């Protein structure tokens, strides 16, 4: 994940520049980067802890339902709490902040499978291309074949830096770029995406 490397302090080069430019279009990213700017130490261990806790929260809930002891556990815990409350003068024990856990974490990266595809799937995207394609009416009107475009996807899912890597005919190329630029969102990714449009 590009943002991880950036917040760990790798802020040089084209990839860092790209992330910074993304932040100009994406207020969510911009605010997050602002937050990390003031971080004195590497925040990735904290992020890993958060992720782990959220994931384990899921499993705990599933297990509890599986074993059906939820109701019983609740009654037990409540009873306990009230018992102690009475004895200690009525106040419930102060809730410990959730992060004060002693965990030895390795800084293992958190792998995430990223699928490069339109947000609504390829099927819907292909339908969009077929529906919205405006075939050239100029000198390119009889051109048949493929145009391959390459582009990056910003955090909002919008393509940018669109370029033609396989050309057919100028008007077809322009139309392909237009379809991508004005089309549905893609799942955000750091990788450059390649997509081929057929003109027949």
């Amino acid at each position, binding site marked *: *994940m590009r*943002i*991880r490397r950036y*917040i760990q302090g790798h*802020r*040089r*080069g*084209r990839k*860092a*520049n*790209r992330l*910074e*430019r993304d932040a*100009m*279009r*994406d*207020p*969510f*990213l*911009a*605010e*997050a*980067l*602002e*937050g*990390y700017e*003031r*971080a004195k130490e590497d*925040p990735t261990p*904290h*992020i890993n*802890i*958060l*992720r782990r*806790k*959220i*994931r384990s*929260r*899921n*499993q705990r*809930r*599933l297990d509890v339902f599986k074993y059906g002891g939820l109701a019983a556990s609740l009654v037990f815990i409540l009873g306990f709490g009230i018992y102690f409350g009475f004895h200690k003068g009525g106040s419930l024990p102060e809730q410990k*902040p*959730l*992060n*004060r856990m002693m965990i030895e974490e390795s800084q293992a990266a958190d792998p*995430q*499978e990223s*699928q490069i595809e339109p*947000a*609504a*799937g390829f099927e819907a995207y292909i339908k969009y291309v077929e529906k919205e394609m405006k075939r050239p009416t100029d000198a390119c009107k009889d051109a048949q074949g493929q145009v391959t475009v390459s582009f990056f996807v910003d*955090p*909002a899912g919008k393509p*940018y*830096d*669109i370029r033609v890597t396989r050309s057919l005919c100028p008007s077809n190329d*322009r139309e392909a770029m237009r379809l991508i630029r004005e089309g549905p969102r893609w*799942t955000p990714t750091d990788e450059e995406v390649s997509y081929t449009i057929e003109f027949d």
Partner: protein
Amino acid sequence: MRFRRNISKLADEELLTEYKRSGDTAYFGELYNRYTPLLYGVCLKYLKDADKAQDAVMQLFEQLLPKISQYEIQVFRTWLHSVVKNHCLQILRKESRQIVVDLRADLVESDEILHLLEDEEPDSERMEALKCCMAKLPEEQRISITHFFIDEMSYADIVETTGYSLSRVKSYIQNGKRNLKICIEKQMK
């Protein structure tokens, strides 16, 4: 878990739908986890404390888990951003701290100027106007913008090359963009 492999391929909105349909927290957990770096960062910005920020991210998760099925959400990412912001502001209000409101409206610019600078604009008239307006910029702004958009140098790269401080590089770029926008609009009339 067997089905983690599958659910990580689903889009945000699909995960949300599946969660609403099945009530299985693994879907929402997967979705929320995609955003933990951004969520934590935003909480750091507002709460200015690592422990408080972590607590805030976990609290928000617990709050959203039961309630999210009730909302009609178009774009999850955008929605989540405003939710986490409000969550942080609520926390600050409870602490009775003075909330410093960021009046910098230029946090996110319109796309036009960015398109031009990133050379995506097919309109050659505007590109000509851009060239002309670039030449009119104050030197530091022109240098910073050229380095950032044309040479694709990061802020840290530019700091090293020019000797300007990080905050000055950012403000040269922000102000430069604004000046370019005004100049180009004048030119196009």
